[in-house]
């Protein structure tokens, strides 16, 4: 089965240790995810790509217990739907990224816990490719 990323340019792939790809403003230093062409803080247009830290801390989280409206959601629905966790992980001195979490059990998730980036299967597309997404999982 061919594995393909959900989108080009949002994480390094294939890679032993994949990383998210963001932007840093060359004028004010703010970091965004994903990349963008102008700065949301100072409106400068000099943004450079930056690969982001693979570890951070869980800043906010919830669970998604029903399939989101489709479109735009393209993942499994009906009996194939599995609840998943979702949250923001704060990458130190960089940015908070919104992400799927590998855990959907409220007992297993706590604000402030250490998380690390993984790339996991998300769905199988019409051509039979396995579509991969970034996610974060608890460390340890």
């Amino acid at each position, binding site marked *: 089965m061919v594995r393909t990323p*959900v*989108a080009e340019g*949002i994480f390094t792939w294939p890679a032993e240790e994949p990383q998210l790809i*963001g932007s840093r403003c060359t004028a004010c230093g*703010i*970091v*965004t*995810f*994903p990349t963008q062409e102008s700065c*949301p*803080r100072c409106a400068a247009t000099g943004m450079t790509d930056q690969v982001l830290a693979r570890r951070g801390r869980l*800043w*906010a*989280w*919830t*669970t*998604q*217990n*029903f*399939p*989101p*409206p489709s*479109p*735009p*959601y*393209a*993942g499994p629905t009906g009996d194939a739907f599995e609840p*998943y966790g*979702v*949250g*923001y992980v*704060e990458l130190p*001195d*960089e*940015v*908070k*990224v*919104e992400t*799927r979490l590998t855990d959907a059990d*409220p007992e297993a998730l706590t*604000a402030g816990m250490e998380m690390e980036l993984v790339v996991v299967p*998300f769905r199988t597309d019409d051509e039979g490719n396995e579509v991969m*997404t970034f996610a974060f999982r608890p460390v340890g």
Partner: protein
Amino acid sequence: MDVAIVGVGLHPFGRFAGVSGIEMGAVAIRRALADAGVEWRDIQFAFGGSYEVDNPDAVVALMGLTGIPFTDVYNGCATAASALTLAANAIRLGDHDLGIAVGMDKHLPGAFSADPRQYACPSWYGELGHFVTTKFFGMKINKYMHDHGISQSTLAKVAAKNYRNGARNPNAFRRKPLSEEEILGSPVLNYPLTQYMFCSPDEGAAAVVLCRAEDARRYSDTPVYLRASTVRTRRLGAFEVHSPWLPIEETVGPTVDASRAAFEMAGIGPEDVDVIQLQDTDAGAEVIHLAENGFCADGDQEALVADGALEIDGSRPVNTDGGLIANGEPIGASGLRQVHEVVRQLRGQGDDRQVPGAPKVGYTQLYGAPGTAGVSILSV
């Protein structure tokens, strides 16, 4: 130039098969006109808000083709606040003496959906399932509960209050009281929020007739004055819906900005407010918005709810008509439904949900995607 509200009208909120959004808008307008004792031909201008109806101004086909300037408004969940603010400004500027703000909508059931690219979000964000508003509200209240010591049972108490108030409101969508146990026992949609803690998109319309304050007594023995009406959008660092990322730096949300601006405009403070309408997209949003609008400190909600402070006969009555939880959210009409309720309360026309002690100052707040808030302050 000060502005007064001299007429309010509502088409009930709920599900109305075979009735169009425009037809509901016409019903609301006719009721507001009757309330003000004026005719459609007296109306000099209109602002109309809707998400689903492309041209709210088409309501003139049902009301009368009088040729008035009629401007359509869409501004997310703050659509009705925007229509009200623009209508008030048209009078403040001296352009007109008497006009109307109307909101109408007719949504399909289920969570709102759209193309994420229309919200400056990448396609993959929607493909992965992130483009859904309910999980934002789940994350925001979950973090707030963690930071400020709010319990899930407080969320259930807030929802139960709003269903209870809705049961006293003949115009409400959901009129059946639900117990805390039933609310907590309904399926979790986005932890810690359960199904019965959320409002639903639905259908309905509301209208408000406005005039120059100095003319108000001509139309009404009980005019209500619009002391402030503000709309704000998010600043960098606010925790907002549909955000693939947030900066490390943090700041307050647009509700706080809109609220502070409104209190400054009105020259009063939260302690002067007698009846409150807050955006309760979910029970957690009502809890958070109580603090964001200055009605308590973060964390105080736990005790306030336990003591019944948010009840109709409490010290800070909130969502006396059942709020969004009991009325649902027809986006274009929702904020004018809040104004309708506050005006009825300030006139002493709250029927069996009347706030005791002749309330003199009322407050309304809207919040929604993609980080927009609207506030109004009214007084007798």
